[in-house]
């Protein structure tokens, strides 16, 4: 099986350097060959597990983190906001 590694990289927002493309593709093909080992199973029907009912918390207003603490790890900030490259002209 041939893998379109560049398409996958694009979907995953990764860029693979040209000199690494072949290596990545080869390893990926080996891996896919390994995980392809699956039995014939009926995949119709829902994946929801009816015995595992998750409890939702009440939707209540609660104190959150202070803005300045949240921004401490942000790479670029100004005026209490996170800075990103311009997205509209």
């Amino acid at each position, binding site marked *: 099986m041939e893998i379109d590694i560049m398409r*996958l990289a694009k979907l995953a927002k990764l860029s693979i350097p040209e000199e690494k493309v072949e290596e990545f593709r080869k*390893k990926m093909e080996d891996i896919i060959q390994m995980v392809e080992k699956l*039995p014939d199973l009926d995949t119709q029907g829902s994946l929801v597990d009816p015995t595992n009912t998750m409890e939702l918390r009440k939707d209540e207003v609660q104190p959150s983190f202070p803005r300045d603490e949240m921004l401490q790890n*942000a790479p670029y900030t100004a005026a209490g906001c996170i800075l990103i490259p311009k997205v509209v002209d």
Partner: protein
Amino acid sequence: MDKLYSLTAAQMKDLLDRKEVTSVEITKSVIDRIEKTDGEIQAYTSYNFDQALQQAAAADEKRAKGETVSELAGIPVAVKDNMCTKNLRTTAGSKMLGNFVPPYNATVVEKLIADGAVIIGKTTMDEFAMGSSGENSAFQVARNPWDTTRVPGGSSSGSAATVAASQVPLALGSDTGGSIRQPACLTGIVGMKPTYGAVSRYGLIAYGSSLDQIGPMARTVDDAAMLFKAICGKDKMDATSKDYTYTPYGDSVKGMKLGLPKEYFGEGISAEVKERIYQAVEVLKAQGAEIVEVSLPSTDYALSAYYIIACAEASSNLGRYDGVKYGFTGSDRSSLENLYVSSRSEGFGEEVQRRILLGTYVLSSGFYDAYYKKAKVLQKVIAKEFDDALKLCDAIITPLNPTTAFKIGEKSNDPVAMWAGDICTVTLNIAGLPGINVPCGFDSNNMPIGFQVLGRKFSESTLLTIAKCYENTVGGFAVKEF
């Protein structure tokens, strides 16, 4: 008293309760030990020594005042570097989080601090917990104290190495496909992956959220149990955590039925490993356990199911690392798209990128049914087989790893060979069951071997009982003089 660092947590607790030592003395001894040996072991990515001494002093003060304290009060614990620690760098072994300082504590860390434990530092790990050798750390490769040219296993490599090298008695690890049990096995210590939901995952940097679980690593069963008891239970911050009543364990296997699944003793398992495990089974049999044969026919497919599910979840979980809100930011800010791509390509290591790509592939349109959905259906089949097998016995015994610790570099360029080593451990995560590594001797290179005891959901006390019985019968586990 010299060599305080080498005591078990239970011994430390006794001395502290009898006021024969202080936590500050223990903590200083541990720090000194780490300073002397960590150049070689490389178990830590961050030290927390100043704060640890303050925590120790606080625990001492409470004891001096006669206040009731928890079992862990004043006892040093190492924490894997994928659990958030407030104001203490938490990297998940990745350049992506190389400078990340969390504004909050993971629930497990919060619980340890509330108990008065001393947080000694953050341990080395495979990047984002993806790896079985520790070699995928962006910073350093932790060493196996039994032979420092060999890996300690992974991904909780530093947690295993620091406990095995007697730098510290207790460490927290996390286990998505074997990352607590396998390094415990390769370094000859006890490591338990609790039932999914037994321990809160809040503040654990996610890999495969439906499989991830935090658990204890220690040199004795009692110590592992002490740490587990402190961290288990429901947490409102983790909707998948469950009410958990910790039940004390015993030390007798008399009358217990232990299952041996033939699928786990096949060709891929080294002869030395098998032989040691059969001997361990004989030990338990002599203590009154009944051995029954059980079957887990889908074992062969478990690796596929595991890697598909884990990588699918990882590709979603790691989508958050975009160079914008926190973490590493890329060099190309010419557009938002380029910022995302450069941040992720420069910030993630190769193995992480590989798993993201696999996850992207199995979730992509046209392949979802063939891979992801099939793996999820298979997950149910595997869980059902475990349920059926565990109706015939109280617990199941298997090898934990096909081989003993391998040399650094031996498998690092062959992901398929590395992944294949996880065959004995991933099945539990898929089924959500608990499992524990119990050390059971050495191979001809004097490298540790371990067996796995696994059981029904929330049967940790049964697993601990079996492990404790074995530990008592063989007169305790060997500790590496390092």
